[in-house]
């Protein structure tokens, strides 16, 4: 029989080693866990905050803005696009608001067109993107103006890394031009294509509901210029405002409701083909 160390020595060593490993592992887990918990605790309130619900700290006298677009009235003249461009110095090739033209053909095809965002109206027939499968003109159609939806659950504010994108107490979503780093994450996160990177200022830009006008008691430029009264803007927390009365008496839809962004820009007369 070969000499062996006593069993108690060996088990003593392995037990000690085991305890050492446990202690090290325990310390690591504790540190890791502490870091994770602290981060979560710091993050969670902000996670809820970014969702910005209409808030329990607001009273009935606070103004909350809303926008309503009646697509049954829009004639596609493009006045809104031109007015917005001039009012807000929007660079060429980019749009804070635009109008889409939907054309339905007898064979069931649908085409959508927004040449220059509707800047020159839709009058010139060659702009129509008639599908190759038919020579017939469309059987029906309508226009859909679009702009920033100023969502309640904004995906754009959620992803802004520096807090440059924010929401005012009236519910208007804005970009701070001094803090934006121009990463473009908000542009990617907006499901509606409302945002763009301004090539001149190199920051994110979008419709502001003409914040500089509405805070002075004026209406946004696009609302004022619309000759068909297809755009309505106002205080949705005032039940007597025009917009509140319209919202209460019409069937109202929003774009991409399935995404859960809860837009404040609502529509009358939206068709299922409008995405």
């Amino acid at each position, binding site marked *: 029989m070969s000499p062996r160390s006593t069993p108690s020595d060996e088990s003593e060593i392995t037990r000690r080693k085991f305890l050492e490993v446990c202690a090290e592992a325990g310390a690591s887990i504790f540190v890791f866990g502490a870091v994770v918990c602290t981060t979560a605790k710091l993050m969670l309130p902000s996670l809820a905050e970014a969702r910005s619900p209409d808030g329990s700290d607001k009273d009935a006298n606070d103004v909350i803005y809303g926008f309503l677009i009646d697509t049954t009235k829009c*004639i596609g003249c493009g*006045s809104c696009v031109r007015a917005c461009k001039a009012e807000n110095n929007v660079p060429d090739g980019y749009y804070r608001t635009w109008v889409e033209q939907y054309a339905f053909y007898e064979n069931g095809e649908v085409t959508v067109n927004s040449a220059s965002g509707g800047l020159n109206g839709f009058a010139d027939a060659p702009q129509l993107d008639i599908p190759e499968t038919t020579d017939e003109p469309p059987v029906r159609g309508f226009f859909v103006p679009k702009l920033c939806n100023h969502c309640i659950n904004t995906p754009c504010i959620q992803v802004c890394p520096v807090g440059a994108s*924010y929401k005012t107490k009236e519910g208007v979503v804005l970009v701070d031009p001094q803090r934006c780093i121009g990463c473009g994450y908000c542009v990617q996160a907006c499901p509606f294509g409302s945002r763009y990177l301004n090539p001149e200022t190199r920051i994110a830009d979008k419709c502001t509901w003409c914040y*500089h*006008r509405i805070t*002075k008691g004026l209406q946004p*430029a696009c609302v004022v*210029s619309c000759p068909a009264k297809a755009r309505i803007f106002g205080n949705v927390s005032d039940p007597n405002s025009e917009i509140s009365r319209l919202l209460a008496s019409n069937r109202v839809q929003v774009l991409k409701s399935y995404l859960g962004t809860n837009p404040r820009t609502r529509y009358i007369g939206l068709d299922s083909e409008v995405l």
Partner: protein
Amino acid sequence: MGRWKHFVRLLALLAMAAGAFLSFRAMAVPKDFGTLGHFRASAIAEAAAREPRHLGSKECEDCHDSIYVAWSEGKHSKPQCENCHGPGLLHVKTVSEDSTDAYPDRIKRYPKALQPTTGIQECKWCHLKTFERPATLKSINSVQRHVEKTGGTYTAGSKCTDCHDPHTTVVK
């Protein structure tokens, strides 16, 4: 200290770096950041401060009262003055000889600081027929056919304003 000496120095270095970071942060972040939410609070006032460029048609009445009256009482009162003529802020400012330097070129390009009207392009925006427009909006399919049908002579330079008063649509 012994075997910890190099760690102590490393940690000292890291502490200095952290301190530098925090002092840069204190200098770089505006004091009002975070007071209203995760953004710079004074941005709101800055966003609200910009001067509106569209003044509204009522502002035109002061100097252009007869046109204003004809327009507001006529059939063409739905489109606003600034729809065809462009925003009026710069025009009012240049006419009253205020400084216009603060305004970027986009609305500064034109003489009298107003968009020049062509007498035809602005009309086509609404009145050239597309299939979706309501029947109540009077529109035409082609300028040439309309001119000829109404007994005029069509040339390449024909304008709607040759026959129609742009502010009331009344045929002259």
